[in-house]
């Protein structure tokens, strides 16, 4: 990849986030509460807000005992996921003074007094940029979608989508780890997993700037995860751009287990790690969508899917429609005369009509028994004509069981002892290379 394909901090500011983002948009993106207000008006799904705190009185006057079992307590202008307390359930035992207590996702106990103090801290600006006074709010807890259950540690994963010129140009799934203590922020040690824009299937993963294949400490593959409701995720992420007033933005989407995708927050200067997770340069992609006339959200998503599809996208799409892709050379299993299964290399040949098996192999497998011969067919060769048997054959290709009538031929000098003809390839897609 050329250096000029990669987006750096200098170019991000000067060429994209500064010229494309309005002052107002940046202000909105800096405040989660403002963002929520605008997104709700634009009818983009967001987690429900239970309470807002702008003054100390709000904190004193709020009836904390009314809080539900699970919720998230957040600063409006917090940076990098700091100052967020997520409560998973009510503690079964109450505190010594008999008050309600909750258990956080990090498995610590918090009581009402702790929450009040945390609220004060937030209002004082302990978590905001430049320590300016801030607002706090309590919102609905978004649990983990079951698609991610095996990959995320405790917290809720989210999907970061970078949108430019109303086109979703790149996406990354962020998985909390033990080290990030349940938070989905890359800089706190969460995993970044690149996602193919066309299909929503994960591709590569980075952790601490290094490419990894498995979830740390396990043998669980991180590529090939299919993110549910992918189209909807891209659409709501793209739809954020206009109402907020940002032409270049990163949208964080969470997948609510029941309610589907929701926008958590937007970012006017999204991080660059996403390039590593996708092994793709952002600058090149931004160049390709710059200046395009994009009429609607749907069109923007379509453009992205056409421009940024990965090499496997076509295969994934075909498989979603019910086809199974096979290569020219495939390992197949053949059932022998005694019911045994033998693995053999086969050549998929759509030029042939009938599947055929090498004579020696067929003999070895016991397929040339009288009872297995279904008939004969005439074959022409340089010496005239001869009759060759047609045998019953059962084999497995790409996990599918196929029972057919196959020819027998002399392929002793050839590497692949079996040819699979188009008669038995119904429902398959053949990858020609």
């Amino acid at each position: 990849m050329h250096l000029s394909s990669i987006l750096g901090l200098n170019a991000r500011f000067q060429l994209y986030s500064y010229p494309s983002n309005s002052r107002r948009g940046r202000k909105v993106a800096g405040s989660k509460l403002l963002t929520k207000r605008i997104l709700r008006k634009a009818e983009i799904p967001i987690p429900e807000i239970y309470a807002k705190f702008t003054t100390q009185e709000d904190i004193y006057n709020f009836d904390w005992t009314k809080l539900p079992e699970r919720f998230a307590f957040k600063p409006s202008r917090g940076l990098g996921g700091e100052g967020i307390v997520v409560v998973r359930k009510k503690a079964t035992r109450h505190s010594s003074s008999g008050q309600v207590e909750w258990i956080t996702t990090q498995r610590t106990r918090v009581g009402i007094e702790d929450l009040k103090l945390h609220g004060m801290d937030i209002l004082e600006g302990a978590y905001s940029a430049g320590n300016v006074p801030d607002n706090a709010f309590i919102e609905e807890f978004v649990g983990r979608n079951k698609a991610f259950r095996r990959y995320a540690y405790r917290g809720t994963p989210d999907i970061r989508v970078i949108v430019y010129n109303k086109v979703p140009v790149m996406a990354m799934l962020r998985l909390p780890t033990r080290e990030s203590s349940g938070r989905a922020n890359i800089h706190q040690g969460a995993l970044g997993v690149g996602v193919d824009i066309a299909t929503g299937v994960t591709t590569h993963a980075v952790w601490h700037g290094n490419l990894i294949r498995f979830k740390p400490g396990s043998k669980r593959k991180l590529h090939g995860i299919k993110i549910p409701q992918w189209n909807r995720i891209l659409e709501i992420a793209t739809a954020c751009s206009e109402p907020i007033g940002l032409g270049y933005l990163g949208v964080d989407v969470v997948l609510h287990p029941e309610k589907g995708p929701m926008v958590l927050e937007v970012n006017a200067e999204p991080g660059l790690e996403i390039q590593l997770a996708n092994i793709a340069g952002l600058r090149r992609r931004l160049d390709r969508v710059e200046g395009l006339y994009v009429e609607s959200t749907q069109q923007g998503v379509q453009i992205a899917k056409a421009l940024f599809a990965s090499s496997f996208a076509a295969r994934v799409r075909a498989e979603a429609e019910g086809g199974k892709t096979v290569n020219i050379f495939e390992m197949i299993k053949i059932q022998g005369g005694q019911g045994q299964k033998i693995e053999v290399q086969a050549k998929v040949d759509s030029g042939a009509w009938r599947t055929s098996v090498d004579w020696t192999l067929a003999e070895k497998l016991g397929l040339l028994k009288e009872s297995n011969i279904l008939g004969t067919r005439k074959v022409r060769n340089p010496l005239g004509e001869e009759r060759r048997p047609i045998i019953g054959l059962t084999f497995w290709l790409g996990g599918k069981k196929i029972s057919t009538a196959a020819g027998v031929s002399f392929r002793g000098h050839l590497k692949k002892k079996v040819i699979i003809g188009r008669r038995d390839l119904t429902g398959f897609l053949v990858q020609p290379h």
Partner: protein
Amino acid sequence: MALVGQQELGSAWLHPISYAIRNALTQGVPIDNIVLLLLLPLVAAVIAASRHLIGLRGFGIFLPAALSAVFVATGPVVGIGLFLVIVTVSTFSRMLLRRLRVKLQYLPRMALILLVVVLAVLAILFVGPQIFGRRELAEVSIFPVIILVLLAEDFTRAQLGKSIRIAASLTVETLILALMSFVFLSLSALQEFALLNPEIYLLMVLGLDLFLGTYSGLRLLEIWRFRKLIRN
């Protein structure tokens, strides 16, 4: 002083700053103050360059620049020593507060940490000259020390919520930047050039600032960060 006196100056229209400097010197303004003032824009530009060309982050532009000025006043060894002591003390008192489960609001907590830091600095100023036998410690002027103490808040704030590793790497980067700026501030050739050709020197700094502000290429450390992309 002698150098400035010997210099033949042309028209006052071409060298307005040179004339102003010569005037100030004859009025009794200390030459060190003028040199430090003249070099400050360069230090700021150097810090900006190391952010935009190299990719060292540090804590903004003010912290390293202030630190380098402190180093000039106290000498680098004493300056770094004091700085490290202050950072360590503020970090430890913050961790101690958390460990002891003392729950204070943000500003009172910062004030408390400042109190601990002041105690530590006082201890060093009292004990240092006797134990370490360093006369410099006794003679350190108070303003650099106060600046150092106030910097403790920025560090504590920067550490808030961040992992220790990030806070440590930012601290080290700030120190590197401050030392680099200190070297620039104390280069005698540079001091002379700035003093004798202030117009040319300031124009060069201006040019550097403009270049840095419009540079949109990759930073050196970003090339390293994304090396796996380049190889593919």
